[in-house]
């Protein structure tokens, strides 16, 4: 019983954590609270399904291609939309409100375009939808793949941030964007990279989600909310924090569903989320600033 809850919760949590990685990177490094994040994942989800159904391209291949395109899209978005806002704000708190409103606009814009392009129907494909037994618990292979991707990309990210000079620059910009230029760091370039990698990760998440979940053009907000909850719980910009918070959230939902009432899973999520916001806005694992 407990083993089942643990395994199902961890697999679910892995898919959640994967969803949150990109968002935490975008906010942590580029300082953009991207409310259109869910829509970006949807673009990849629709892209994967379209490639699979129209061109017969294997989803696993799309999983490699789509993030590259996502990186490009993120690069363009940052350069065209976010950069002017950053320049205008001049390091004041105005950027936060501006970026929220601008990405809000982006949210509706992408949603409208997806509606026009793909219609309002539910979209779903079946790919690698068979069970794999882990310690006697049957888990869907496509979810397991998503979990694997999460562990891989999350691990790689943590490693790169902590062990490479590139990661050092990233962290410098994340911590003190004001003084990073003093040591010769091109803040704009690093922020753009952070945002673009975040978008690429959103595409990875969207592409893996499309393999196991039914989605529609209007459902992006749900992904954004989930990711936001995890990002806030882990502490914004904190990649290991997001990984742990994602897994914890999966466990929590599974536990609430089994032990208390499946009707309360979402309420429990929001309660914890609001509680963290109130008492530890720096996240469960962040240091008090």
């Amino acid at each position, binding site marked *: 019983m407990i083993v*089942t*809850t643990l395994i*199902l*919760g961890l*697999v*679910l949590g892995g898919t959640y954590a994967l969803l949150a990685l990109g968002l935490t990177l975008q906010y942590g490094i580029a300082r953009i609270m991207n409310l259109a994040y869910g829509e970006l994942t949807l673009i990849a989800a629709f892209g994967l399904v379209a490639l699979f159904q129209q061109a017969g391209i294997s989803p696993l291949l799309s999983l490699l291609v789509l993030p590259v395109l996502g990186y490009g899209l993120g690069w363009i978005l940052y350069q065209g939309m976010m950069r002017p806002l950053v320049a205008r704000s001049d390091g004041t708190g105005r950027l936060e409100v501006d970026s929220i409103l601008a990405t809000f606009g982006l949210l509706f814009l992408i949603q*409208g375009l997806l*509606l026009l392009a793909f*219609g*309002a*129907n*539910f979209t*779903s*494909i*079946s790919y690698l*939808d*068979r*069970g794999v037994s882990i310690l006697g*618990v*049957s*888990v*869907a*292979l*496509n*979810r397991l793949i998503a979990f694997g991707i999460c562990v891989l990309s999350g691990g790689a990210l943590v490693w790169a941030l902590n062990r490479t000079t590139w990661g050092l620059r990233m962290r410098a910009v994340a911590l003190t964007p004001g003084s990073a230029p003093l040591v010769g760091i091109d803040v704009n370039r690093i922020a753009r990279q952070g945002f673009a990698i975040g978008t690429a990760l959103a595409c990875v998440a969207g592409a893996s989600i499309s393999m*196991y*979940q*039914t*989605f*529609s053009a*209007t459902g992006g907000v*749900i992904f954004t909310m989930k990711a936001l909850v995890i990002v806030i719980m882990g502490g914004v910009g904190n990649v290991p924090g997001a990984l742990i918070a994602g897994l914890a959230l999966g466990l929590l*939902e*599974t536990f609430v*569903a*089994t032990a208390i*009432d*499946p*009707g*309360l*899973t*979402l*309420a429990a999520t929001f309660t914890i989320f609001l509680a963290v916001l109130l008492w530890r806005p720096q996240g469960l694992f962040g240091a008090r600033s």
Partner: protein
Amino acid sequence: MTTFTRRATLGALLLTAASSLALTAGTAQAEGETITIGYAVARTGPSATGAGITTIPNYELWVDTVNKAGGLKLPDGSQKMIEVVEYDDRSSNEDLVRAIERLAAQDKVDLILPPWGTGPNLAIAPLMARFGYPQLAVTAVTDKAPEFAARWDRSYWMLGGGHDYAKGLVDVLAAARDAGTINNKVAVVSVADGFGIDLINGARPAFEAAGFELAYDATYPLGTSDFATLLNDAQGSGADSFVAFSYPPGSFGMTKTAQSMGYNPKVFYVSVGGAFPIYPGIADGNAEGVMAIGGVDADSPAIQDYFARHTAFVGNPPDSWASAITYASLEMLAQAVERVGLDHAALAAELSNGTFETVIGEVKLEDNQLRDLWWVGQWQGGAFRAVNPGDKAGAATPVIPKPEW
């Protein structure tokens, strides 16, 4: 600065007044040239998915069919083409109500077709009654239909109530249990939404009255995407029958999860979405034996012809629950217009009392409600066939136990 602001305000108000006038000016209808039919349906927002599957394609198909045949027939034998006035209600009842006021008071359309969903149909019912338009509410499942039909005497409720579907399902399961095919335990999950609650409230007493034990009974919130825990608990309950009062994302998600975890109950029932044409694809070709809400008489030539026309016009077949009834309601409207014309009172009386020839067979309303409905269907041989009520002409025999995935 204050003077400027005041002048700007005044200017803006004048502009507002002018544009309000422009909006309300409307188009002067050329009396008698065409028949104008208006509808406000969700093109965008959360309801767009349901409306886009069941309601809008049928409206468009019907208008196209009628116009290609020369238009709607009138009692004097003449024919008039249909002109459509369409608004997007953005899935908001507030916008919907205003759109109906616009259709009735501004555009003065001849007929108004209803929106998609129970809530929207209830929201417009008082308005439709006040303006006197008949309201053929198809996509509204409500146990209070008799009450509503009495309250608004030109409203017609054509999809039954939660109790009906629950009772139909219990009948099917009770017959299988009495034959010794399944045990008397049932695992039920329901979505926390008006529809799911209506069904589970009807199902609980019906299951108990039939001597079933609800071995697992849980509700999950709208928006749930992971069903592994739910199905795992259902599987552990020892029930032979799994019943989900669910919406399409849930129906699809549970199907996939049941397949991947190898959960093979003898009865697998989902609600909305189970009769959608994409369902067999979602079940990866293994939909055989899955039960769901609704159903059609798949062997009837009228239905086969309708499916073929829908596929040709829309690009995909209709869903096998409310689509055919939506189309039938439009055929009723056309025949009623042909018999009594466009006068709303006469039209309403004809819809209440007349008998109509439609794709779902001969239709006659009882107390403004369509009661001759299919409650349970099952995927058999690639088609979604109605299995309950079993004594209705065209019913297929339920296949229990369901073959393994």
